[in-house]
């Protein structure tokens, strides 16, 4: 069975981002970039399905600038078989990304497509659902467990207050939650080897997809600062403050 994993290059999760001086966008010019952590979970899950003898081939695909090669190399170093870059200089919104991924899915014909449930830059949590819609297949979103057979996948989903299980015929699209697994550590020799592996590049403009943005970004700003807090020295002082000053306790 063939699996496709979609990954995104995003600002590393340890970085605290700031707006550009003119507030027009996020300033990411010089910050460290990494594979989106939720997508890394998707790659790991695909590798485990191959190790369990269920998957036979794993193709990683990224939509982004030429620099997205580095996250594809990370996926290759983790162990995926092939990598495809859909190259575009524009930042694609989830809808455009889903359309580009659809073109790749139609070419590659995977039984299952895995993608992180959200990217930690826009936090949109939309692309997987949009891809499933465009492909007219079932979606198993926010997945914390997968049970795959030859023609169906049973997905345990994280929902408000608990869990839900759904069964989807293949092909299907899965979006992965952090709880699904813990991604393996990439060893340096594997990274070095992955540097030599070929990455197939498709120009996004060749895929016949409408990528025009639908949203106009007007402004990026830090949220209003909270009034500075204080340190209290004892439990009794804390209780007094909560009662008399904050008035959150009777």
């Amino acid at each position, binding site marked *: 069975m063939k699996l496709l994993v979609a990954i995104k290059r995003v600002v590393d999760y340890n970085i605290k981002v700031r707006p550009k001086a003119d507030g027009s966008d996020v300033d990411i010019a010089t910050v460290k970039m990494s594979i989106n952590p939720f997508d890394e979970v998707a790659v790991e899950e695909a590798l485990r399905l191959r190790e369990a003898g269920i998957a036979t081939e794993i193709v990683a695909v990224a939509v982004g600038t030429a620099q997205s090669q580095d996250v594809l190399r990370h996926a290759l170093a983790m162990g995926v078989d092939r990598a495809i870059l859909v190259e575009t200089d524009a930042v694609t919104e989830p*809808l455009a990304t889903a359309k580009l991924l659809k073109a790749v899915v139609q070419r590659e014909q995977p039984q299952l497509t895995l993608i992180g449930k959200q990217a930690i830059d*826009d936090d949109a*949590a939309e692309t997987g659902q949009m891809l499933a819609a465009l492909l007219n297949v079932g979606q198993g979103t926010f997945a914390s467990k997968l049970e795959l057979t030859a023609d169906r996948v049973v997905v345990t989903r994280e929902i408000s207050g*608990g869990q839900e299980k759904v069964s989807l015929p293949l092909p299907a699209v899965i979006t992965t939650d952090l709880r699904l697994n813990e991604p393996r550590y990439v060893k340096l020799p594997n990274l070095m080897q992955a540097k030599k592996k070929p990455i197939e590049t498709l120009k996004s403009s060749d895929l016949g997809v409408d990528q025009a943005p639908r949203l106009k*970004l007007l402004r990026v*700003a830090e949220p209003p600062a909270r009034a500075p807090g*204080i340190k209290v020295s004892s*439990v009794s002082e804390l209780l007094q403050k*909560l009662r008399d000053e904050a008035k959150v306790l009777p």
Partner: protein
Amino acid sequence: MTILIVAEHDHHELKPATRSAVTAATALGGDIHLLITGHGVDKVAQAAAKVQGVTRVRVVDDLAYAHGLPENLAPLLVRIAPDYTTVMAAADSFGKNLLPRVAALLDVAVVSEITQIVDQNTFVRPIYAGNLNATVQTTDAIKVLTVRATSFPAAPDGGVAAIDTLPTTGDAGLSAWLSTEIQPTDRVELSTARVVVSGGRALGSAEQFQQVLAPLAAKLNAALGATRAAVDAGYAPNEWQVGQTGTVVAPDLYIAVGVSGAVQHLAGMKDSRVIVAINHDPDAPIFQWADYGLVADLFETVKELEHNL
């Protein structure tokens, strides 16, 4: 301008988050219709008709909708969306699962998890785990929005809307529901609790998490929350996780116990009205967000706090 809100409910009551979406829609202006889907939804339709601001309740009753499967609901929404300028839902697991699927089929964008309405086409939404706010404007003919419930108060009762029924689009055959497990809780629900007591990795075990935090939560009539580190370590169930990937809360009082204050955790609680942090490390980042910080060992402090309440 007419707005359609896709309601979430348990077949008895509307979810409070749906009422928050109604409040957001009221700010947009125009007629507000609530869509109730499910199987045997009379009772919840009656309840929906009483929500202040709702002008019409539209009901579609079919077993295919009983579990909110997006594969079945999306075709229904695609059929009725052209009657509306805006399609909305709360940004919880139901709305986030469904609306992007609907938007893609309508070939429009989603403005997800909006926290503020600037004007009819312009919205503020958090990005980068709430580190930044983006103001975005839609250019699509039909706006598809999800609303962060903690940013808008729940609409109260007080309305009298008409109810009508719409035909079903049936089962799309792309998915089957197997089971739902909602963790039974004898406490208030996390997302709407007025007080939240949250524990981090420092609690050390599931037993200590319960022994130390549960009595305090009980006395304060609070919901229990947890960091992802605490959940991963098995100290607390996943449903309690507060943060970028967990539940977003904004209670009157948030007490963070042995929580370091990583951005991903802050993303879920920094809009709380009053934040208290108890941590033995004076440099823990949580103190930059706490209104009241107590540098102390949690195992001594929390008991003392509970006894003196």
